[in-house]
């Protein structure tokens, strides 16, 4: 293997940056902190590019490197190691690349915030764990990264920890994620119990591994259980129903954090995990179906909420949830390539959207309500154009990146043997809504007249005065991401990307399929062949483009042509509107159904009964009993040496007497 293959550098560099900034950053100037963080990330990106090139040139499906044993317990062992294949390569490049751009953006964005070094230390810290998650060669190491990004996410959501809402949002994200982790952990236990290893190679790749030899489960079985539990974990991390509630609140964090963690990278960890575990899911159709259903539902559900939100970041947050739902839907129909493809393009345009939103918020002095914006196009043209590109991308209008990936997903949902027309239909409706709310955002923010606070007559506070364009340091990442949002999807032209992940996908062999049922075995597993399906695909492509344009048009009609109409519709819809505006009262539902009873149960049963009466009572009674007994016994502890000696002598005499008695019996 080439000596340049040193993938361990990729996670270690951000860790170094985090350590340097975390330990000494307080004494550094802001410039020095920024240099350290940026250098670490940039170097990491460069190394990642080199490693990717090595992988592609080597011709191997995967490269692996070991760094030592972590756990050794009987036959079970866990290593530190890095596993680089096409899947982790894409993730790695996205994480380091987008991460680097967002680091640049943050330098300017966080300029006036306190805890500058802390922020960059956390950010690098997050990069480290995200890369551990992505590059790990076994599930346990992946879990380390999984938990680590959770921690970093918690720290960064609660970055403005003086604000109650930020601190609470951090806690909410953390606790919600714990529910998911619970499922993931149990899945790992099951894997250990049934297969005795967590190593990707031994588990998922080696031809004769026990897992790959298992037949497809027609009814619920071990793999189904593992898959469903993994899905729980993925739902937590990737904000899917029913664990999505933390993501919108996570917008309390600084905007670059939302862009990096809650749009481009961390939240896609669930998708990555499902794709990584494709061998498991492919053999557990029920779990796969659950993935697809949850993904579809989430994407639709979040899109409806997105339509009514007025906070610019929350619209994007629900949009993220919705897009993640898309990815799950793709994974659920066994179109892992499409899923990862969308993951990549989404990382580009959603990061761009968030950064643009950040730029907007920065430009209008911290305002996040879209109703108080408007007409910003002339104040911040760069931001407008880049955001427009991102919006076109997410809406799925060719030739922007989102079109290719989203179209791929819809086609797979339609045509895949695991897919269904229902998924396709719901996805299409969602695409329409996506297009609608995204253009609603653009029109509300950038067109019409500025509705925010008018500039002060004296203009003494320019930060809260006239909206202004952001500094070039923030715009440069926007432009770069804008370019990527345009061209990022082109790799998918002609289905080139469709087979990109094939080395990673462990196809269900024919015999295993035969074990499932004869009908499925009769259909070719490799899908999408023949001119008929090609024409269908083109037709579907046209439909989805039309739908996207329809969303655009509706948004234009409602928010540019007849801006008074939305109010009337909202009033007309009445209850439905309020229901959607308040996010279906899901948070309140959780509070009433889960949290309230839990707290009441904890208070009455656990605290007042178990803890106070049983535990405390036992302890107290034990102490009281000990005190009472001691009060009697301590009489003999007179402090007089000779009385002690007397006791010793008496005891010795007793022992001697006993021994004599035993000896003469």
């Amino acid at each position, binding site marked *: 293997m080439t000596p340049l293959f040193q993938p361990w550098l990729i996670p270690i560099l951000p860790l170094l940056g985090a350590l340097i900034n975390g330990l000494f950053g307080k004494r550094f100037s802001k410039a020095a902190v920024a240099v350290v963080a940026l250098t670490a990330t940039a170097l990491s990106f460069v190394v990642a590019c080199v490693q990717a090139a090595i992988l592609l040139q080597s011709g191997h499906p995967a490269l692996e490197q070991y760094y030592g044993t972590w756990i050794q317990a009987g036959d079970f062992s866990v290593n530190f190691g890095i596993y680089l294949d096409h899947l982790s390569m894409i993730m790695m490049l996205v994480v380091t690349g987008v991460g680097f751009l967002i680091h640049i953006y943050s330098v300017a964005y966080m300029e006036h915030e306190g805890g500058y070094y802390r922020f960059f230390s956390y950010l690098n810290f997050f990069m480290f764990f995200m890369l551990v998650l992505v590059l790990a060669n076994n599930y346990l190491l992946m879990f380390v990264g999984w938990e680590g990004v959770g921690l970093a996410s918690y720290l960064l959501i609660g970055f403005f920890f003086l604000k109650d809402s930020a601190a609470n949002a951090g806690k909410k994200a953390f606790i919600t994620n714990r529910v998911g982790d619970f499922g993931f952990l149990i899945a790992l236990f099951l894997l250990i119990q049934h297969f005795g290893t967590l190593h990707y190679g031994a588990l998922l790749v080696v031809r004769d591994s026990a897992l790959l030899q298992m037949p497809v489960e027609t009814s619920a079985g071990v793999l189904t259980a593992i898959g469903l539990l993994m899905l729980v974990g993925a739902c937590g991390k990737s904000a899917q129903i029913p664990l999505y509630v933390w993501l919108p609140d996570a917008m309390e964090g600084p905007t670059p954090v939302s862009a990096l963690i809650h749009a481009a990278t961390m939240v896609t960890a669930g998708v990555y995990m499902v794709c990584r575990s494709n061998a498991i899911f492919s053999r557990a159709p029920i779990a796969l179906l659950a993935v697809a259903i949850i993904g579809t539902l989430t994407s639709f559900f979040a899109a409806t909420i997105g339509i009514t939100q007025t906070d610019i970041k929350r619209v994007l947050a629900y949009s993220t949830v919705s897009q993640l739902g898309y990815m799950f839907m793709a994974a659920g129909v066994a179109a892992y390539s499409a899923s990862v493809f969308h993951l990549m393009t989404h990382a580009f345009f959603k990061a761009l959207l968030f950064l643009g939103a950040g730029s907007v918020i920065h430009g209008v002095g911290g305002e996040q309500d879209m109703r108080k914006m408007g007409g910003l196009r002339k104040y911040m043209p760069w931001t407008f154009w880049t955001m427009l590109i991102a919006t076109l991308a997410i809406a799925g209008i060719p030739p922007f990146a989102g079109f290719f990936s989203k179209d791929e997903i819809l086609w797979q949902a339609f045509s895949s043997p695991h897919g269904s027309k229902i998924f396709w239909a719901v996805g299409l409706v969602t695409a329409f809504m996506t297009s609608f709310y995204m253009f609603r955002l653009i029109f509300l923010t950038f067109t019409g007249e500025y509705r925010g606070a008018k500039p002060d007559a004296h203009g003494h506070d320019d930060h809260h005065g006239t909206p202004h364009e952001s500094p070039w340091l923030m715009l440069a990442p926007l432009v770069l991401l804008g370019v990527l949002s345009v061209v990022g999807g082109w790799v998918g032209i002609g289905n080139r990307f469709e087979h990109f992940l094939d080395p990673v996908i462990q196809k269900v062999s024919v015999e295993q399929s035969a074990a499932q049922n004869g009908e499925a075995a009769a259909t070719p597993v490799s899908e999408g062949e023949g001119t008929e399906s090609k024409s269908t695909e083109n037709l579907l492509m046209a439909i989805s483009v039309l739908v996207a344009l329809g969303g655009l048009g509706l948004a234009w009609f409602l928010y540019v042509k007849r801006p008074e109409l939305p109010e009337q519709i909202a009033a007309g819809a009445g209850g439905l509107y309020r229901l959607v505006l308040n996010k279906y009262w899901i948070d309140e539902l959780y509070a009433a159904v889960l949290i309230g009873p839990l707290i009441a149960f904890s208070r009455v049963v656990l605290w007042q009964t178990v803890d106070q009466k049983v535990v405390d009572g036992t302890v107290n009674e034990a102490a009281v009993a000990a005190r009472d007994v001691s009060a009697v016994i301590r009489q*003999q502890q*007179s402090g*007089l040496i*000779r*009385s002690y*000696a*007397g*006791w010793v*002598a*008496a005891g*010795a*005499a*007793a022992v*001697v*007497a006993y021994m*004599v008695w035993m*000896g*003469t019996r």
Partner: protein
Amino acid sequence: MHLFLFLLFGGICAGGAVNLLIQRKTINSALSLIVVMGSLALIYLLLGAEFVAVVQVIIYAGAIMVLYIFVIMLLNAGEEEQAKGSNVAKIFGIPGLFAGGIIGIWVLLQHRPAEQGVKIGALYGPADQVGWMLFNKYLLAFEVTSILVLIAIMGAVVLARRGNN
């Protein structure tokens, strides 16, 4: 002859031990103890343990008891004072002691028929053999003891030194 010597020195020994108990003055008790040790050394000689006997004199009588006498002189420890103490010693200790002693004697007498006598000087215990055992079979114990003594020295120095303040 040997029995006579044993009874003589044993008697002196026992008398010294009893005297230690009876005497009220600490110095007299100490002198009785020296007598006990000296007569024990002679009994060791009877048993053939000449090296042990001499060492008994040098270490016990010559060093340890000198230390006791020294401390008695230093602290001018005169008559024992009468104070009301714990009765536990009297209630349990002495009866226990008597019981133990009676049981012990009884056991010894029980086993008498089976026992063999000890000839005077039956075991020749010269210094070189003792030394050989000490530095071979019991080397570890010897070294550990040296550490113990070192610690004891340090402890004594620390304890006996007047406080700095």
